[in-house]
């Protein structure tokens, strides 16, 4: 039972353009959402997060949007840079009880110079 889904396994964009990575979830008890970035042979690194009480959070070139009614979130990267090429994981945390993260399967972003 995949509670967090990233339906696009890969995405390719041109340098300078916008990258949009999508994530859907099924469990309405999730109250906190995070995006992690992973380079080969390294562990995931935290990128940006959003609480369920917000619908947008921005940090430099990265913006996360949350649509609770649709159980959908997206990560926007503007402008995209070749160094952004990595696998991006969406993760969610439950409101109560177990506080560990539930991850999606990841989207590989390739930014073409």
């Amino acid at each position: 039972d995949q509670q967090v889904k990233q339906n696009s396994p890969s995405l390719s964009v041109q340098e300078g353009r916008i990258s949009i990575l999508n994530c859907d979830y099924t469990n309405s008890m999730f109250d906190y959402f995070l995006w992690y970035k992973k380079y080969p042979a390294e562990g995931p690194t935290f990128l940006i997060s959003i609480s369920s009480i917000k619908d947008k959070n921005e940090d430099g070139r990265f913006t996360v949007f949350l649509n609770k009614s649709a159980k959908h979130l997206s990560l926007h990267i503007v402008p995209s840079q070749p160094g952004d090429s990595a696998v991006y994981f969406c993760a969610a945390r439950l409101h109560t009880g177990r506080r560990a993260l539930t991850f999606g399967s990841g989207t590989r972003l390739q930014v073409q110079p």
Partner: protein
Amino acid sequence: EAGVAQSPRYKIIEKRQSVAFWCNPISGHATLYWYQQILGQGPKLLIQFQNNGVVDDSQLPKDRFSAERLKGVDSTLKIQPAKLEDSAVYLCASSRSWGGDEQFFGPGTRLTVL
């Protein structure tokens, strides 16, 4: 600040053999997690420690997997005996407290079971 350390980085074993992984979290982080990441999937939690106590091990295959965190610092994860489907990257992460928003991950141990 030193990050999460893991060793070994790579391990190849035959099925039915035993293997152990080691993790040293960021200093002062009370919560430690072990995740299993199978190729093409996201990390899946195996076990979560708060200091040296287990918070959640509901997804740990206890017939073959075990983990401990002595003295609330370093942790070891053991598989005995290994199966082919255990081939994965084993990630250790830590956070300041239980429910800490940001988890810091180590580089992982890539296990191949032949």
